[in-house]
């Protein structure tokens, strides 16, 4: 078929039309991942980091993931950087070379990846491809966002750029509103309640209470989480992740080089990425995010594993309902049973399927471009047994789920300790 494509342009047109109509499943990559290892992972504290600029946060995360982890910066061959919208937040474009220069990595190929809140994980995915292809042996993946140097209104306006400006933002739909609409649909179809969502927030704060890098290191009661300060009904203040600053970094390397740096690398054994319509109104099902389902299917297929093989998950809980839906979309629970899992404590730190064991976006913070990389940092630390009081009991294999904006981009990675 490839030969035909090369020889007959008209067939390309036919194939293109056919592909547009084919289900995404038919075009999934089934290439096995065999050579990608995470050998170090670090993040800055997340929160309102007053007096710390974008490049300083970036540099701190990079130093922690390289020289403080015994990895010389001279070993890094290229950098993949996730950052959402520094143009609006700190009036700075072309950030990749600027950040690298400040962090002592001047001269390396450096590219910024932008897919809204999934920017970090799309940078990670590009790095995975670079290692798997053999193009590089050792690369840096980092994510960063500085959000608190502008007013909350300005930050909200910047975030809104990740929704469709012409058809949805223009009638006053906000990000919390997008997830409010999903919540109403989920409540109607499955009986999920505002209290179920509040319990996700209570869990996030409980886990973050023992995470010194979290923005909110404080437990909250269910009553407090239910405080009726509506942002976008039925979502209340405590259903929403905060505006945050922060950075995170990883070093990825090949099997051969990994041994130089650690006895316990973490392998990335499956990766998936999918997109969906930006507009909520163009989606046939509002109780599930198709990009999450598609990316998960790809990642599981590539890893040759199933949801039951996952010990825990780190998912994109930008809003509490997003965690409930993600827990269903990644296959941990059947559609409609995510809320029950929260109520039954199954997703708690000591539950059978812990989700966001260090506190998630809700309580740790959500510096947009850093989040996807930070999620990989959390998975890495849990898998190597370095999560302190937030250590999950079973920690061989895990899944991370990072999605962007209205759910129009999703990246899912499956990671496993190399000794398994």
């Amino acid at each position, binding site marked *: 078929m490839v030969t035909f494509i090369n020889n007959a342009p008209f067939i390309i047109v036919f194939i293109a039309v056919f592909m547009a109509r084919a289900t995404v499943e038919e075009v999934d990559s089934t290439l096995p991942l065999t050579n990608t290892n995470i050998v170090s992972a670090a993040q800055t504290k997340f929160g309102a980091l007053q007096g710390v600029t974008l490049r300083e946060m970036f540099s701190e995360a990079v130093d922690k993931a390289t020289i403080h982890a015994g990895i010389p910066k001279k070993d890094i061959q290229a950098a993949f950087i996730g950052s959402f919208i520094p143009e609006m937040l700190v009036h700075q474009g072309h950030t990749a070379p600027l950040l690298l220069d400040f962090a002592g990595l001047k001269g390396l190929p450096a590219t910024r990846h932008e897919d809204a809140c999934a920017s970090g994980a799309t940078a990670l995915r590009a790095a995975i491809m670079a290692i798997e292809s053999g193009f590089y042996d050792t690369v840096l993946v980092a994510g960063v966002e500085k959000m608190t140097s502008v007013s909350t209104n300005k930050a*909200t306006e910047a975030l809104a750029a990740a929704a469709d400006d012409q*058809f949805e933002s223009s*009638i*006053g739909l906000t990000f919390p509103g997008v997830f*409010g609409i999903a919540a109403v649909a989920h409540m109607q179809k499955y009986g999920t309640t505002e209290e179920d969502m509040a319990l996700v927030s209570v869990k996030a704060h409980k886990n973050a209470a023992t995470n010194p890098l979290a923005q909110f290191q404080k437990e909250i009661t269910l009553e407090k989480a239910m405080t009726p300060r*509506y942002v976008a009904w*039925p979502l209340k203040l405590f259903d929403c992740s905060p505006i945050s600053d922060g950075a995170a970094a990883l070093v990825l390397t090949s099997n051969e080089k990994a041994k130089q740096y650690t006895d316990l690398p973490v392998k990335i054994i499956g990766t998936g990425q999918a997109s969906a319509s930006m507009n909520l*109104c163009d989606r046939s099902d*509002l109780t599930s995010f198709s990009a999450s389902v598609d990316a998960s299917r790809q990642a599981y297929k590539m890893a040759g594993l199933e949801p039951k093989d996952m010990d825990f998950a780190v998912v994109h809980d930008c809003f509490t309902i997003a965690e409930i839906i993600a827990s269903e979309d990644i296959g941990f629970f059947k559609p409609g049973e995510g809320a029950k899992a929260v109520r039954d404590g199954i997703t708690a730190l000591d539950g059978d399927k812990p989700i966001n064991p260090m506190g998630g976006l809700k309580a740790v913070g959500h510096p947009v471009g850093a989040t996807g990389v930070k999620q990989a940092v959390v998975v890495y630390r849990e898998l190597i047994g370095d999560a302190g009081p937030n250590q999950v009991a079973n920690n061989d294999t895990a899944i991370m789920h990072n999605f962007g904006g209205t759910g129009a981009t999703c990246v899912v990675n499956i990671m496993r300790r190399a000794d398994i």
Partner: protein
Amino acid sequence: MSEKPTIDAYLKNIEEGHFRAYKCVDCGMIIAPPSGSCYGCGSSNMTWAEVSGKGKLVSFTVIHVAPDQFAEEAPYYVAIVELAEGTRVSARLLGFDPMKPEEVKLGISLQLDYEKGKSGATYLAFRPA
């Protein structure tokens, strides 16, 4: 009706209180908001379509914390509405008290309307039929 539809014209139509959808010339699918290619057959050959203005409520939210340009209008409803012609649009929902969202039932019949916002823009809107 025969000119090739554009996003500018689509938005202007709403501004002027005459909402029209896109229609795929090749398979007849009705599409709104605009798409460059048909969700049904992949064709990019589009024309305009008048719609009945009838729809049903799929889901909604009430925006309490709004961006600056909409702040004076909050709280307000934003809904997903499925038109009788099959496509879904995002629109303002009128005719309900924004402080009593629990009284709004999904699936109810709606009728096309427009809302002139305090921002000066006209929004696509629906109210109970």
